[in-house]
Structures are given as structure tokens and as C-alpha cells.
């Protein structure tokens, strides 16, 4: 878990409305040396959320020109589920080239990484990370930060859904084994001790901590234990 990611948790935790999220995105882009972060969520018949750090002029232009359905980033994340590197998309069409050029003129960086996410009722969401940098510089930045991007995307998405009251109705309950894992950690056992007690490998133990963390919306183990205690998912 990176230090930056941990710093982000607190701020995300204290967000009380969707209006707080753009401020959070601004902090995030500074922490991660990015130019922009953009969140989009929508789907057939669903309310859209567009939260971004882009200059508002560019966003208005993009909307007014109806660029979305020609935008290789939007179109490719609609159909794929792997994170998308903008440099690997096909910008050769006339319209695509125009969108790219105007985006750069409008303050968007050349390098982007977009993470698609899907939810119930056909909801689609994505988080884009964007920076203007030399290719080699971007390559090493992406290498260092890509894991955080994946975690951040899901975390921001779940937070926005919770704040808009559109979080998927199913509460993600911990399985008994995940409760065992967090309980032993809350009692101060080391991972090795706890895994041995549960008669599972340390590798399996780590993965169960990670799945519990994901269910609880926690970005580290200490936080996961705390959330589980608050929700009374575990009792010590």
C-alpha cells in the first residue's frame, strides 16, 4: 500500500457530498503529479455523474460538439474492461484526430489511463488519469502508480455511488472466513500466526484480507479491521 494512497483515504472518508469529490480529485492529481483526474458514471436511464478537474471550457466544448460517441477513450472503455492506455487507441480517423488535438489545446494532457467499471442495472463508470509528459517519463510514472489507480478508481466509484444514494442495494457481507482473518489480526496476531491457526497458507490469508478490504471499502488492513469493528462485522 503506497503512502499516497493512505493519505487519500482520510479525505475520501470525510467527503459528505458529491460536491466534495472534485476537490478531492484536485488533491489527488497533486499528490500523484498528474494534470487531471476525471470521473464519469452513467448508463441507460441512469443519472450521470461527471466530476473532473478539466477546464470547464473544454468540457462544455466536448459536450456541445457531441464528442463522446466519437471519443476513442469513451468508446473503448465502453466495451473493454482492461484499463486503457490512450496511446494504444486508434486516433487516425478525422474526427478522432480532431478531438485529440482540441483536447490538447483545451488543457488536457497527452498521456491518459482510463479504468472502466461496471455496476448493477447497466451502470458504467470510468476514472481517467491524465498528464502531459514525455513518453519515457509517463511510462515510469504509470509503472509506479498503476496499482493505486486501480484501487482509487473502485474506491472513488463506490464513494460516489454511496453519496448519491445509488450504491447497489446488496450489502457486501463478509464471509465467516474473512471475519476470522480480521478477528485474528485485530487481536494482534501476525499474519503467519493467524494463517497457521486457520490452517491456510499465508498467500491465501493475504488474499482473504484483500477481499475483505475490498468489501469494506478499506484501503489498508488496519482500516479494514477498524471498519469491521465499527460495523460489528467482527467482535472482539
Amino acid at each position, binding site marked *: 500500500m503506497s503512502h499516497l494512497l493512505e493519505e487519500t483515504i482520510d479525505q475520501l472518508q470525510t467527503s459528505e457530498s458529491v460536491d466534495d469529490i472534485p476537490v478531492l480529485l484536485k488533491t489527488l492529481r497533486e499528490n500523484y503529479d498528474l494534470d487531471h483526474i476525471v470521473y464519469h458514471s452513467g448508463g441507460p436511464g441512469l443519472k450521470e455523474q461527471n466530476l473532473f478537474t478539466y477546464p470547464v471550457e473544454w468540457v462544455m466544448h466536448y459536450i456541445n460538439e457531441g464528442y463522446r460517441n466519437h471519443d476513442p477513450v469513451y468508446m473503448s472503455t465502453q466495451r473493454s474492461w*482492461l484499463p486503457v492506455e490512450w496511446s494504444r487507441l486508434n486516433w*487516425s480517423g478525422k474526427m478522432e484526430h480532431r478531438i485529440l488535438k482540441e483536447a490538447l489545446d483545451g488543457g488536457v494532457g497527452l498521456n491518459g489511463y482510463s479504468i472502466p467499471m461496471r455496476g448493477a442495472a447497466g451502470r458504467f463508470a470510468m476514472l481517467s488519469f491524465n498528464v*502531459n509528459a514525455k513518453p519515457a517519463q509517463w511510462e515510469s510514472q504509470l509503472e509506479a502508480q498503476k496499482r493505486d489507480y486501480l*484501487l482509487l478508481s473502485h474506491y472513488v466509484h463506490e464513494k460516489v455511488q454511496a453519496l448519491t444514494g445509488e450504491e447497489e442495494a446488496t450489502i457486501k457481507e463478509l464471509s465467516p*472466513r474473512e471475519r476470522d482473518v480480521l478477528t485474528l489480526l485485530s487481536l494482534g496476531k501476525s499474519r503467519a500466526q493467524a494463517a497457521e491457526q486457520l490452517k*491456510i*497458507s499465508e498467500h*491465501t490469508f493475504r488474499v482473504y484480507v*484483500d477481499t475483505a478490504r475490498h468489501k469494506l471499502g478499506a484501503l489498508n488492513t488496519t482500516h479494514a479491521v477498524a471498519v469491521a469493528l465499527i460495523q460489528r462485522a467482527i467482535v472482539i
Partner: protein
Amino acid sequence: MIRFIYADQLTSEPALASSMFNDRRRQFKERLNWDITVGDDGQERDEYDDMNPLYIIWQRPNGLHGGSMRVLPTVGRTMVNEHFAHLSDGVAIASPLIWECTRFCISPDAEDGRKVAGALMLAGCELGLRFGLTDSVGVFDNRMIRIYRNIGWEPTVTGTEGTGKDAISVGLWPITPECRASIADKTGFEVTAARDWFEASFPSQMPLAA
């Protein structure tokens, strides 16, 4: 060579696609006798093939399928979580940092099955490293364990059902540069081979410079 290809791109590769689904019938239905459905066309597909998975496919020199596996994110629906959760202590393995790899299949027609198996595993590890994953989860016939060991990338088994040749397990593969090096070492591929396959499937084509 290895190709990374989404399900919705397979329509433009009908020969490759049909040879893959035929080979899956031959392996999973005819050889391993798994409880799975085969269509009237002789092809083995299931509901997860409809979720636009990414396939990692070894394409033979004649253009047909030599081996493959199917990759899906575990934050969506997966075979392991919907059908085999009892083999992972009842824990649904769902995390943005874990993907599911299933239907690991080698064609009986492949020129060198061992090489194909190694290439697929190297490509899977590369994919995970490239996107910052921690683990891959999969369900497999226990006879595969020996093959995984020979390839240099063994899973941690979380649970097994059945005995002897009918045993099926769920396992976790850690995704680390060391695992990639181990696979390359055991299979004779350059450690950079999978990077080249990925670049060929998803080429850089940015027309402007920063």
C-alpha cells in the same frame, strides 16, 4: 504466437474462434469429462464467454487455435465465485487487483503443447504485471498441477473437491516479476517475449507528441 483478444473481436476471426471452442470441447468435455454444455455446433461455451472476457490465445502457424485461457475481472461475475466458492473457504474472491483465469486449454493439434502452455502462462503473468495486479485465481483439474510446476508458476491451492483424477481445485497464482522470470527460465522464452506479444495486440499509435 500469443494474441490478446476480446470476445467481441472474435467475430472477425471466425476460424480462430471456432477452433478454440472446438478444442475446449475436446479437452474439458471429452478428455476431462467436466459437467459442461456443448452446443449443437460442437463448441464448448458457457455464460462467461458472453461477458466479453479477454482471451489469451496461442495462434498456430496455420492460423488456428493452439491453446488459450480466458480472463475476467473478479469485481464482476466470475466462475470461481459463482460455482466454486466452497473451494475458497466460502470467500468470494473479488478485488480490483485479482483477475480470474479459467478454461486453460491446450489443443491436441498444437505442434508443441508444452511450449504453448508455457507461453500462455508467461502471457498471463505479463498481463497481470502490466496492469498492477497482485494475484490471479482459477479453477483447474488436478492433473494440471504437474504442468504448472514444470512451467515454473505453481498456484497456492485454496481448496479441492473430488479425489484422484477427478479432483478439481481452486488456486491462487501470485503475480510478481520473480514469477515471470521463473516461467521464462523454465520454458525457454525470453522474459520480454510476452511484452512483445502484448505490444503486437495493443500497439502504440499516438499520432501527436508531448
